């Protein structure tokens, strides 16, 4: 091996060290910035990551001169040195002299040579790794190769960081929208449960229960297709729109028709299954409309738990002007609403799963019903989210 090759190999080892795997993501990015700077002998290095809008780069880790700037410098994609690399996804080296027209960002200040590579993962640009020198010098192809190796490692870290940030934001949103303990409602004992799925993470399941000015109680459950922050945000909008229409109309089919129209217009790509039901003030009857959702389960003192027999209308967002129907029935002793994560498993027919669910329910308080259902899931890794709402009559 040539001396040059040997040196390159040592430099490569320094940036791919397995020790790096022990660091948490922020420390790892800081360490990568430091090693990139050392490996190519630059005066400064910065790792910038795209923010959630994808329109701005944010300085996330730095070493050398740029470290004095502190984190948080923002650079619009397409402008200045780093922004140009993010826009073109090509490595770039610039020697700055009097004739160079460069829209400088604070991290380019005082540098005469700049070199940078895009940070990508799964074919998507996530950021830019950027080094610089105060004095004139050359950055060789070997230097750029080293920066690419560091950028690959940073790409994996950035991906993990994005997933973590998105999950945190989604969980926070879910928590704010789905109270662990639904509000107290006279004449009803209510319990709810939400279990985030393991595979796809938190998503668009929701439940809701509220008292209307008429003394009626509105009950909803639903599932927005998709997962992550996007699904949770759409869920939040659908949930509050449903509440708004619930004040305007007492007929669940009408409420879901209005909600559907709103979704078709403002969230054309959204798709959700839902049930909306209204319990009358005396808690003796219930009127429900089903938009492609799994039927509720009814429990009465006499007879086994059973599914509500109802013709489901199309899910929300499925098709313009889908006809919707409401069905009125005596309010049962207990009502259980759930989302598909509870029963959909690969290799198990749906009817078998529903039968198993019906056999599991032995009655009791709303909390006890939730516990009976969740015992069914216990030890069974669930891919999808599960939302559960149990409502029992107390008088």
């Amino acid at each position, binding site marked *: 091996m040539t001396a040059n090759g040997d040196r390159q190999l040592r430099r490569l080892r320094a940036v791919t060290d397995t020790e790096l795997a022990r660091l948490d993501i922020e420390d790892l990015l800081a360490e990568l910035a430091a090693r990139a700077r050392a490996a190519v002998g630059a005066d400064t290095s910065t790792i910038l990551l795209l923010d959630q809008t994808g329109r701005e780069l944010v300085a996330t880790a730095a070493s050398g001169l740029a470290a004095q700037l502190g984190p948080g410098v923002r650079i619009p994609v397409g402008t200045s040195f780093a922004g140009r690399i993010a826009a073109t996804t090509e490595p770039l080296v610039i020697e700055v002299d009097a004739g160079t027209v460069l829209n400088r960002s604070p991290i380019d200040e005082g540098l005469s040579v700049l070199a940078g590579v895009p940070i990508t993962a799964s074919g998507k640009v996530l950021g830019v790794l950027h080094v610089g020198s105060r004095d004139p010098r050359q950055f060789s192809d070997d230097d750029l190769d080293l920066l690419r190796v560091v950028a690959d490692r940073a790409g994996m870290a950035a991906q993990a960081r994005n997933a973590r940030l998105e999950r945190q934001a989604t969980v926070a949103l879910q928590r704010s929208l789905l109270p662990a303990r639904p509000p107290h409602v006279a004449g009803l004992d209510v319990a709810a449960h939400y279990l985030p799925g393991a595979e796809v993470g938190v998503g668009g399941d929701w439940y809701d229960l509220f008292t209307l000015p008429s003394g009626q109680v509105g009950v909803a459950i639903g599932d927005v297709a998709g997962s992550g922050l996007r699904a949770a945000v759409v869920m939040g909008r659908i949930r509050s729109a449903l509440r708004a229409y619930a004040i305007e109309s007492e007929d669940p089919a009408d409420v879901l028709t209005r909600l559907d129209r709103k979704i078709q217009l403002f969230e054309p790509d959204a798709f959700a*299954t839902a049930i909306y039901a209204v319990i009358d003030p005396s808690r003796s009857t219930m009127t429900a409309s089903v938009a492609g959702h799994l039927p509720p389960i009814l429990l009465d003192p006499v007879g086994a738990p059973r599914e509500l027999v109802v013709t489901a209308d199309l899910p929300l967002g499925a098709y313009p002007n889908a*006809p919707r129907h409401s069905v009125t029935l005596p309010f049962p002793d207990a009502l259980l609403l759930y989302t*598909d994560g509870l029963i959909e498993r690969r290799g198990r027919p749906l009817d078998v799963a529903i039968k198993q669910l019906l056999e599991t329910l032995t009655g009791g308080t709303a909390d006890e019903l939730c516990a009976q259902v969740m015992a069914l899931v216990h030890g069974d890794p669930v891919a999808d989210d599960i939302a559960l709402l149990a409502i029992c009559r107390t008088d």
Partner: protein
Amino acid sequence: MVSVETERDGDVLTLSVSGEVDLATSPVVDDAITEAIVTSGANTVSVDLSAVEFLDSSGIALLLKGRRRADERGVAYRVTGAQGTPLQVLRIAGVWGHLSGETDPSGQSVRP
């Protein structure tokens, strides 16, 4: 895992889907259906689900999206062959009639 085979017979394009359609795999099927409707030039698109073993709500969503797209472009669209759990899922969601054309055009579907 999921795979989609495309067969063209004159103006009719048939997409045969096999495997599991879930959140992870649905983009593959979605892209195939979208391409068939939007760019293939076929006047009838038929989606055969007979080899689909699992279908979740993301699968339902993409099939419904196909129906909407097809109608907007005047392409005839039919979902066929669903059986077992996928058929149960589509029926319980109230969408089987809407997708298969087995019911009247008002959209009223009949639960078996």
